[in-house]
């Protein structure tokens, strides 16, 4: 059974909570005590007209949220269908909680965007989608979810009018084209009545597509959402999470490196290079954590309490053993001591040179209709051929998360994979106007929920790729080390240049 992560974006008024309640109800993920708690819960919002359960109440967790009748924070829900295990992140829709949508979406494979069919403008034939829908779509696009599905909700309130739905569907098509989002379904639903959510709609016989859950169950999703890359493809990328200097015993001193393989595979005998120092070594042994064979170790244990036996390092004759693939947590032992710490990275190829990756087109942030530069993804083959690049200056999309505004005079910390480096934001190139969905470069202050593009200078290089190539190698957060706050989420647009003195030297 595979795991699929979803995020729903939409405001309370769009019927998002009811949709989630319906999904959980149909999946039998709600249990009798939860249903009876719904009738105990006091809530300002009214129970639906025909006195059915208010399914929306299931998802409003915190007291302050119930009092205000809105969703503030991301809530996570768990359910299973016949074929999949799902994690659904229920994110708030209000503009003032944009940051929660951004962080919730960062882990999701699929975004579900709700459009309320009963909105007066849409029903009356407006020629644009609500501003909020544009904003949610743009944010999910910025975070590069592999699939976006549009759900046209509250169809019961417009009597399942095919004409209204078709008009909304056409607007969605235009939005997809504008933002360069690959095609995907637009599904009419009534979460209240259960139409089109899990089961096909009986009240909209003119709709021939899948229900929402039929669509989701049929999706195929790559592990860890590395676009275009299967688990086995690509050169090895292994960020060191923990460096253990004394992993062995007194007879066999040993260094071990713990971490999760980010891309490619690892096997004994493989030649690896430490990014940064440029030192080469061979992999002596790689132990997947899932295959650890645990034995009692202490005096209460059943096994021999004698001194710890020697560590079974495979001899050269044992090679090659099965390669261990990406997304696997492992412990690695190398054949020689090299300078390698938490935050460093091991690769099977040296880092890419700036020339080899400069050809990538600027990434597709929300742009004006009609621009075509961002409608094609860079081909996966290029990602196969290149490794992360040493970066000391970045151009990045960001969402500012903290209540204290950006201060260009201050030094912050940047966390990328397991690496923490000092940085300064050198310039704000533009901020996104959420009303017009256009960037302006007027020197607007950057505060909570601001989305924009900034330029960052790094004190030490990170080994990165653009976010469009890799979410894991293209994402970072900014941290205020004095206040211990997470300030901003960053998505790398472009690795600007490499200073000559930091250029990686291939020994």
């Amino acid at each position, binding site marked *: 059974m595979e795991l699929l992560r979803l995020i729903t974006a939409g405001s309370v008024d769009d019927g998002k909570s009811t949709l989630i309640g319906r999904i959980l109800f149909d999946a039998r993920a709600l249990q009798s005590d939860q249903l009876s708690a719904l009738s105990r819960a*006091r809530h300002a919002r009214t129970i639906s007209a025909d006195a059915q359960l208010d399914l929306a109440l299931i998802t409003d967790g915190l007291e302050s949220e119930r009092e205000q009748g809105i969703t503030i924070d991301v809530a996570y829900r768990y359910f299973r269908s016949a074929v999949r295990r799902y994690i659904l992140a229920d994110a708030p829709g209000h503009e003032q909680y944009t940051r929660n949508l951004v962080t919730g979406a960062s882990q999701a494979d699929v975004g579900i965007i709700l459009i309320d069919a009963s909105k007066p403008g849409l029903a009356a034939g407006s020629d644009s989608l609500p501003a909020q829908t544009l904003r949610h779509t743009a944010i999910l696009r910025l975070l590069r979810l592999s699939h976006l599905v549009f759900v046209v909700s509250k169809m019961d309130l417009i009597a399942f009018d095919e004409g209204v739905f078709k008009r909304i569907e056409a607007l969605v098509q235009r939005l997809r084209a504008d933002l360069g989002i690959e095609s995907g379904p637009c599904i009419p639903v009534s979460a209240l009545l259960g139409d089109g959510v899990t089961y096909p709609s009986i009240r909209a016989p003119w709709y021939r597509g899948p229900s929402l859950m039929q669509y989701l169950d049929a999706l195929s999703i790559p592990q860890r959402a590395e676009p275009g890359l299967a688990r086995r493809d690509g050169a090895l990328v292994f960020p060191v999470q923990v460096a253990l200097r004394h992993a062995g015993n007194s007879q066999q001193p040993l260094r071990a490196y713990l971490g999760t393989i980010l891309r490619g595979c690892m096997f004994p005998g493989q030649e690896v290079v430490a990014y940064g120092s440029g030192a080469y070594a061979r992999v002596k042994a790689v132990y997947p954590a899932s295959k650890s*064979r*645990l*034995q009692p170790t*202490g*005096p209460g244990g059943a096994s021999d309490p004698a001194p710890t036996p020697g560590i079974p390092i495979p001899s050269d004759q044992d090679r090659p053993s099965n390669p261990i693939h990406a997304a696997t947590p492992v412990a690695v032992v190398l054949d020689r001591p090299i300078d390698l710490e938490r935050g460093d990275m091991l690769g099977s190829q040296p880092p890419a040179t700036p020339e080899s990756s400069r050809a990538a087109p600027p990434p597709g942030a929300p742009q004006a209709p009609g621009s075509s530069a961002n409608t094609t993804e860079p081909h996966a083959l290029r990602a196969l051929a290149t490794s992360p690049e040493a970066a000391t200056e970045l151009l990045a999309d960001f969402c500012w998360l903290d209540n204290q505004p950006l201060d260009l005079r201050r030094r912050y910390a940047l966390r990328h994979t397991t690496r923490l480096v000092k940085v300064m934001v050198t310039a704000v190139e533009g901020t996104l106007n959420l009303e017009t969905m256009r960037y302006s470069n007027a020197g607007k202050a950057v505060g909570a929920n601001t989305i924009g593009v900034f330029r960052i200078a790094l004190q030490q290089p990170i080994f990165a790729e653009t976010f469009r190539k890799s979410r894991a190698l293209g994402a970072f957060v900014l941290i205020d080390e004095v206040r211990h706050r997470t300030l901003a*989420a960053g998505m790398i647009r472009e690795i600007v240049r490499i200073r000559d003195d930091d250029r990686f030297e291939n020994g």
Partner: protein
Amino acid sequence: MSATVPAMAEQGHLLRLEAESIEIIREVAAQCLRPALLFSGGKDSAVLLHLARKAFCLGEHALPLPFTLLHVDTGHNFPEVIAFRDRIAAQVGATLCVGSVEASIARGSVRLEHALASRNAAQAVTLLETIASGGFDGLMAGARRDEEKSRAKERIFSFRDAFGQWDPRRQRPELLNLLHASVAPGEHMRIFPLSNWTELDVWEYIGREGIELPGLYFAHLRKVFRRQGLLVPLSHLTPAEHNDAVEEIMVRFRTVGDISCTCLVASTAATVEEVIAETAVASVTERGATRLDDQTSEASMERRKREGYF
């Protein structure tokens, strides 16, 4: 065991959950100066300890566990669970640090309404005292988001201020796996590596890995009586009153906590596979079936969490 536990190929979700949890546990070891793992002997903490051991292992060679094991003993715990806790802690060669609610009562920092009152809420005080005296800056625990509404909004790295308080508005945004644990002195981080697991995942994983649990989790004969629709175990802390009808039936615990507030479910599930089958079709949540205190108010867990409860 192999008869009902799905084959490896069908357990992709367990591997992905395991990988996520191990990455989180290693992150705690890398970032916290004095990390601890809350180990009560209950099933979630047994799974958490198992994952922590797998995270620090070279094949068959276990590395020293870089965490202290921590438990808050209310003095009202099931003796067999305490024995299990001590035995497993010794087996894995870890240091076990126990905070005692009775010691807090003796010290005067905890006052109960009456001698038999539930000590569940008082645990928070003792826990904070234990954290302060041990200087712990990161506490891992086996709480899951599917347990309860306010937990559904919990971060993986959950920030607690100098008073140990949880404030939903001060939680840190978590982008991808870029979690950060740095705190000011006196503050600490609570970390929930099993956040994305469900009760069923936990049981499937216990079956897959052969994780040992206290016998209370499996069906056994026990004297019980019914109160507020719940099955209460007959004990010196939960005595029957004159109109309670005591009966002896086959039961098991779905959660194991303080005796005074943990209830039973009627069950004949004597093996992990049978428990998995039962969990898959359960019609009541884990806490709903078994906790006397959570029903008190719709927001009772949220209020207790604000006060430093796990």
